[in-house]
Each structure stands twice: as C-alpha cells, then as structure tokens.
C-alpha cells in the first residue's frame, strides 16, 4: 500500500491546482527592509501592495503571527458600502468601494465582488431623519445613495415584512453599488500581488518588541529574530493596543467581541444586503445559499458564556419581526471575532509618537469594506511620512483635541 507522506502532499499540491495554486512565497526574513508591516490581514496586505504599486517601495516584509487572512479579515460578513455621514469617512470608504469595483482585474484574482445593492432600513422616525441627512450628504460627497419608500423596499426584498408592530419599515437608505466580496480572496489576492512584487510575507512570525534609536524606529524583535527596518506600519486590528505598547505609546481603542451566524442553505430569496440598525442586525444570502446574519457587539470575549451568545439570540429576535421566515431556518454555524473600536467609531490612520512608525487600526465592526482605501491611504502616509488628503483627518490626536469624526450612526450596527 502506498504510504502517505508530507512529500506526497507537497507533490500533489503542486500538481492539482484547482484554483488554489500556492500564490505566495514563505521566505525567511532578511536582516532589514525599507518598510515592515506588522499584520497580514486585509489592511496590512493592502498597505504593502500600494506601497509597492503607488510608491515603488518593494523591499517590504509583512510579518504575521499566525496565517495570512486568519484574523478578522477571514471572519467578517463582507458587507461593502460607503454611505457614511461625515466627509472624511465618505471619501475614504468611497475610495475603497470604487477600488473594489475593479480589484479582481487589478490583482488578476477573483475576489468575487458582488455589488448587489444594500439597504439600510429606517424603522424609527429618528432613523428616517438621520438617513435623509445621509442621502443629502452623500449626494454632495459624490457617493450615489438614495432614499426609497417602504413599497420599493418590499419590491427589492420580497421576504420582508414592512408593517411589523414594533419596527415597521418607514423607508430605507439604498446604495445600489454596495454589496459583498469573498473575504479570503481579498487577502489572497493582495498577498499574491505583494509576493509577485518581491515582497516577503512571513507567516508565523510574531512581533514581540519594537526597537528605536533617538525617537526613530530601527526594527522589530520577532519570534524569527530581529528584523531591521526604516519604516514600520502597525496594522494588527484587535492587537493594536498590545503592539502600540511595544512601541511605547497608548491608543484610544477598546476591544469587543462581534458575532455572526449562517443558516442552512436555502433557495435564493434575497439578492440584496439588508441592514437594520435599530434592531442591530443585518442579513444577506451567500452564493452557497446560506443566510448570513450579523449582530451587535458585546463587551467581552468568552465563547462558553451565554453572555456572548445572547447577543445572537437578541439579533434573531429583533430580525424575526422584519423577516418572519427566519424562524423557519436552522442555524448551522456561528462565530465571532474581537474588533477594535474607537470612541467616534472612525478608524485611526496616523503617525505615532515614535518616528517613522505608523499605525492603522480602529476599524471596529466595519473594516472589511475599507481595505483597499485604507491600504491606499496608509501606504501614502508611510511613503511620504505625512498624511495625504484621505488620511489627514484620521490621526490619533483627534481624540485629545476633540476633532471627532462621529460615525456612531452610520456604524451603529456591526457590518
């Protein structure tokens, strides 16, 4: 009988592509780089990609303590939209959304962007006013959204119940070019492109310390030894506080657990993404036929405690009035991730107190949609040492100075 061996696995991996061909190298780290990015999530990989593509900086390493895309990039529910209220956010998220439109061609990797349309339901009069304001703001910002009536909502989403007793549908904020993409594919696509430019993606390489001289970063200590660098980008989402600590500064972020679930596959019944912020829930149907349902955040992270699980129950309870068919579904899987939230629910793309050390974090519940724009802005910041127009307002000192970019309405629900 033929023995199975690691060699056989490697050989077969090379001979059976099926679209999963190994797309990036896993090299050993060099002694030093022009730039080092910590964190191979979507944001870190996109940062590296635009550093190379837009700024010609290719002597770059991306250090990842686990496996690339293994953080929240691989756990989120992939909603993409840009209907934010404040100008700086709308600009950043719209940049990201428009880059998503052509990302598959650009990376030559199918990220399955599906601009199927996205509705944010207004279920209170307060929300109606808020969304009408967003529509006006978006129109001025050049983001294409519109206000639609309950009847139009019903046309777009036949399974919806528009006259529930507690939460009737009063209308919706509609972004026709919002939608979803395949999360892992976004990470893999950027990773392959980075690798093709000669960058080193070093997995299972945990950063344990940051070294500096005269207030300037000089390198990082890692589980694979010391790596020198001229510039450092910290893009580690939920671990930002920890790594900032290593670099000697503090961040105004808190960590929270966020959860999502999918149902068993069913016949296609909803071809748009629907968010219901009043009840903290949202739903879409995946290409596998599963209903993907997400809810609000909760304050702590312990999966065996129901304290965490009851958020899912509450999400379901609230959504069931609007989508009665939910009660006929079976829940198949449920998972969570730790997200990093700022006080104004907007991200941080910023210089830090340490010279040539930059940070990108605070994407909270909604960073997947921002990946290309965030990488673009962060690369610009790292390359020039100063923020460009996209990142200018998102510095970390705004909290001290009271220049909040308040998106607690637009980001009121996890997405």
């Amino acid at each position: 009988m033929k023995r199975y061996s690691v060699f056989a696995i490697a050989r077969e991996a090379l001979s059976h592509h099926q679209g999963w061909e190994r797309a990036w190298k896993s090299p050993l780290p060099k002694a030093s780089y022009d730039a080092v990015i910590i964190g191979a999530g979507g944001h870190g990989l996109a940062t590296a990609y635009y550093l190379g593509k837009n700024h010609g900086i290719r002597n770059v390493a991306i250090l990842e303590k686990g496996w690339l895309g293994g953080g929240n990039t691989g756990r989120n529910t992939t909603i993409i939209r840009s209907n934010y209220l404040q100008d700086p956010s709308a600009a950043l998220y719209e940049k990201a959304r428009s880059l998503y439109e052509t990302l598959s061609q650009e990376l030559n990797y199918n990220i399955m962007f599906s601009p199927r349309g996205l509705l944010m339901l207004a279920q209170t009069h307060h929300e109606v006013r808020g969304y009408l304001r967003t529509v006006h703001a978006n129109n001025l910002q050049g983001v294409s959204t519109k206000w639609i009536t309950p009847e139009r909502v019903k046309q777009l989403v036949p399974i919806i119940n528009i006259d529930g007793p507690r939460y009737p549908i009063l209308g919706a904020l509609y972004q026709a070019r919002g939608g979803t993409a395949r999360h892992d594919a976004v990470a893999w696509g950027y990773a392959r492109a980075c690798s093709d430019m000669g960058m080193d993606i070093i997995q299972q390489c945990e950063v344990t310390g940051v070294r500096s001289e005269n207030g300037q970063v000089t390198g990082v200590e890692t589980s694979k030894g010391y790596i020198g660098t001229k510039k450092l980008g910290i893009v580690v989402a939920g671990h930002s506080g920890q790594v900032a600590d290593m670099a000697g500064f503090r961040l105004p972020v808190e960590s929270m657990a966020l959860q999502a679930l999918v149902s068993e596959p069913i016949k296609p019944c909803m071809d748009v993404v629907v968010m219901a912020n009043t009840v903290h829930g949202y739903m879409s149907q995946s290409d596998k036929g599963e209903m993907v349902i997400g809810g609000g955040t909760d304050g702590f992270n312990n999966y065996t405690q129901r304290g965490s699980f009851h958020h899912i129950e509450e999400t379901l309870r609230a959504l069931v009035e609007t989508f009665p068919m939910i009660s006929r579904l079976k829940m198949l899987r449920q998972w969570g991730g730790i997200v990093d939230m700022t006080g104004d629910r907007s991200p941080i793309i910023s210089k830090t107190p340490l010279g040539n050390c930059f940070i990108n974090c605070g994407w909270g519940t909604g960073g997947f949609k921002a990946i290309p724009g965030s990488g673009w802005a962060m690369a610009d910041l790292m390359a020039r040492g100063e923020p460009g127009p996209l990142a200018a307002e998102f510095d970390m000192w705004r909290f001290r100075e009271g220049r909040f970019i308040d998106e607690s309405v637009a980001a009121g629900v996890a997405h």
Partner: protein
Amino acid sequence: MTGQPAGHFTFDGKSVPLRPGQSLAAALTEAGLRSFRQTAKGATRGIFCGMGVCQDCLVTVNGAPNRRACMTPAVAGQDIRTQVPFPDLATAPNPQPAAPARVIAPDLLIVGGGAGGLSAAIAARRAGASVTILDERKVGGGQYFKQSAVSGPLDAQQSAGADLLAQALAAGAELIGEVEIWGAFDGLLFLAEHKGAALIARPRAAIIATGAYERPEIRPGWTLPGVMTTGAAQTLWRSYRTLPGKRVALVGSGPLNLQVGLELAQGGAEVVMIAERGPAPWLRPIAAAALALSGPALAWTGLRSLADLRKRGVPVRHGAALDRIDAAEGALRVTLMGDLSPVIADAVLMNAGFDPQNEILRLLGAEAIYDPAFGHLRITRDDTCATTVPGLYAVGDCAGLGGAPAAMAEGRIAGRAAAAALGFGDGYDTFADQRQLGRARRFQRHLWALHDVAPRLPDVPDDTLICRCEEIDAGQIRAGLGEKPGHAGTLKRATRVGMGRCQGRYCGPVAARLVAAATGTPVQDRSYFAPRVPIKPVAISAILAAEEALKDAP
C-alpha cells in the same frame, strides 16, 4: 421483515408500507429505497450513520425540509419527499407555534441514556439526588443495549439493557427522549430542542455520557447510497428488524463488524464478505492469548462468533482493506486493496474504529489529551470521572473509547461521586468498581491490539470526497494544504471542509491529521476544529423560544 404493515406513507408520491415503531429510514430501506436526498452538486445520499450525526439522511416531511429520516418515526399518511439541496423557505408555511419552553433544574443532569448514563443515574438516584437523563433518541439504552422500537422478541443484550432502563426509572430518574442539545454554557446551562419546543436545563452538576460515533473508511465510493456504518445497519436490524439489504459486505476493523455480520446473517441476510484490516488472531497468538486471559468470557464469545460465521459460510478475510466501492446495476461493487475479484452487495457496512462525541465536554472547556493509539481525544478525568471543569463529569465512550462494561463501571463511580459532592449520600468505597473498570480497560486494550484502527491519512484519489456535507474532495484539500494552513481551522476557511451540517464530525479529525502531517507537528487537543455552539443545527425558532424563557427566568 416481521410483523404486518401498520399503514403507509408516501415517498415522492409512491406508497411505502411501515411497521409500528419504525423510523422513516428503516421503512424506506425496507422498501428498497436508498437515496433520500440530493446534494448541491447533484449526487444522491441516504442513511449513513443511523444515529443522527451525519445529517445525510435528510428528507422533507409534510413540507418541512431537512428532517433526519433515521431519527424521525414513520407515521401513516406522511408525505415524504426527496430532500432538495436548496429548499424554498421563503414561501413555506410558518412552523406550528411551539409548545412553551420547559425549564428543568435537577440536582444532576445526565446527557445520554446509554450504558454509562443509565448506570450513573441509578447510582446517583439511589444516593438521593434528583436525576434527569436527556437522550437524543426516543428510547434509551444507547448503542450497546440498543433497544427495540418494534414489537418482537429481545436478544440477551437488549433484555439486559431493558433491565438497566427499568432500574433507572424505578429508582426515580426521569428520562426525556428526543432531546437535541445544541448548546452548553458556563454555570452549567444546557439549551436543547424537545419535539419542536425549547428545553432548558440548569442542573447543579452534570454527567456527560454521549458515547461515540463510528469512524468510516474514507475510500472512493464511501458516500454512495447503500454504504453505511456498521452501527447504522445494527440499529436498522436490532431496533427496527429491518435488514440493510439482502446481500451485505462489511469492511474496516474491529469486533463490531464481526458481531453485526453474524447478527445480520442470523437475521437472514447474505453476508458476502467481512474484510478486517487486522491480521487473523491465529497469526498473532500472543496478542490473542493476552486477550483471552484478560477477559475469558468475552474472548470466548468472540471466538464463537468467528466459528459461527465460518459455519454459515461467511468469508472473513483478515488483513484485507477496502479499496473502492462503485455503483453497479442497482447494487454496489466492493473492491479490496490488491484484489481483482470484487464482490457485489446491496449494502456495504463500514466501521474502522470510533470517535468520541465529546462536543459538549469540549464546549464547556474540559481538558482533553490526544490518544495516538486510537487517534482521538481522551478527556482528562480524575478517579471519580470528574473533568477539569467543576461539577462536570464524563463517563463512557465520550471520554475516550472504553466499551460498555467500562462505561457502566464509570457511570456507577461518577453517579455516586457527583451525588456525594452535592451532599447526597457518602462517598463510598469504589474499590470493587475500580477493579472492574481496570479489568474492562485492560480487556479493551488487548481487544483493539488485535485490530487495526490506527488513525489514517486518506490515501485516496483527488476526486474522493473527504467532507461529505460540503462535498470537498481530496484534491481540494491537498491544494488547500499547499497553502500551508497551520491549523485545521485555516484549512476549513480555505476549502470549506467541515463547514457543513455534521459540523465536521467526519472530516474534522481527518483535517486535523492532515494539517499535522503537512506541518510536521503531532496531533494535539488544539489540532481539532474549535467546538462551537450550535453542536447540531438548531431551528432558529427554538433559539428564540429559549431566549424568551431565559429572560423570564430569575
């Protein structure tokens, strides 16, 4: 096979007879129907595990999709249909408003009413603790004592089980059947579905006795309708008096294949072959002698069944492993490795060892250690079967394979210890039980030494499915391994292996082994998919009902 039809139901419009007590799977099998559902990729599937684990036997019952035929009683007049992969739920009628949620708070909750659970219940109840046993099946007894659901004479094993059940009930334990536990949480809170209504258990202590499920032979053709686990066929026969087919072949390794082969032959099936991976006992005289010494009576029973099989002309081929199964003219063609003369059978039964049903234990955070000999996790326990989680005990096969006699001894020990810890009765002298337990474990060790259930890496062609539910084949898995996933969870995300309805129970251990082999690391407790709520797919209406009831509860 025995008894008269008590009525008929329809399957895709065709009339199918049923006998009282039969499951849908049994009645359909008896009528020669093997394909119950269509997969997303257009394949057909039928009964596989026979015990509610694989989720492959799904049918639509009176318009309600995705019901497990093996766990659903057949009722006259039912409209049963082939399950389609994407049922239309948008326009389906709303479910009946479920009965109100029931909240129970016994001193001791026992999950699983098999050999271990029933023994624990008797011991704890006699010590004075209030005891509720929850079981997924309608009838208690578990896998070893497999109770009959249809009328007819009981065999010795069944009557011993009936005695144990009667003792548990006489002692005052409550047994609730048809309970599907889907979540377990800290502070010992169990959430379950009971006939469409929510059941909530808040016990002071819990004993988990959920037993094991069977490890299949992952070979080409293992997902074909008509291929099922040996235990599934045993349940068909012992609980429902339904033969899995006229001609059956058994493959894999272990004593269950021999036992079930004989039971089916005695029941009138033509057993065309039993292929056992392990060498013949007479080629391993020392191991065989060790077995005989450690348990003369059981070893004698085993030897007698071998002789009986031989007398009936059943070919038992030692040192023989399955190569592939192909569909052939309404039957199945079974080819062994290095063999040019395949056999034809209606049903192929496979058992290549067992994997513990330890989901609840792992979900609650009980520590486990990988046992390389059996290739599965063993829950860390002290002498009283207490796990590392306060108030949580594990007995029987769910803690690691041990067999029915060990499960019973462990049940008695844990039942008394759990009751004593709650202030009922004294701790007692466990010497006799510990000695029995030691003997039973020794016997098991020698028994399995004669078989070959070492965990395997699937050495199969690329187009052989590894993940039954999501239909992920070996080629996709190998390509996913090429991405160097460091954990089975990463492989899961890359390939969707383990994302289906069975929650990775069959492909999960394989994925863990493959990733370990590919990364050159040993398999550990952390190598497996992380346990998650829900441990079985659960109706969202049941989640909501549980939430409502918990909100009202103090």
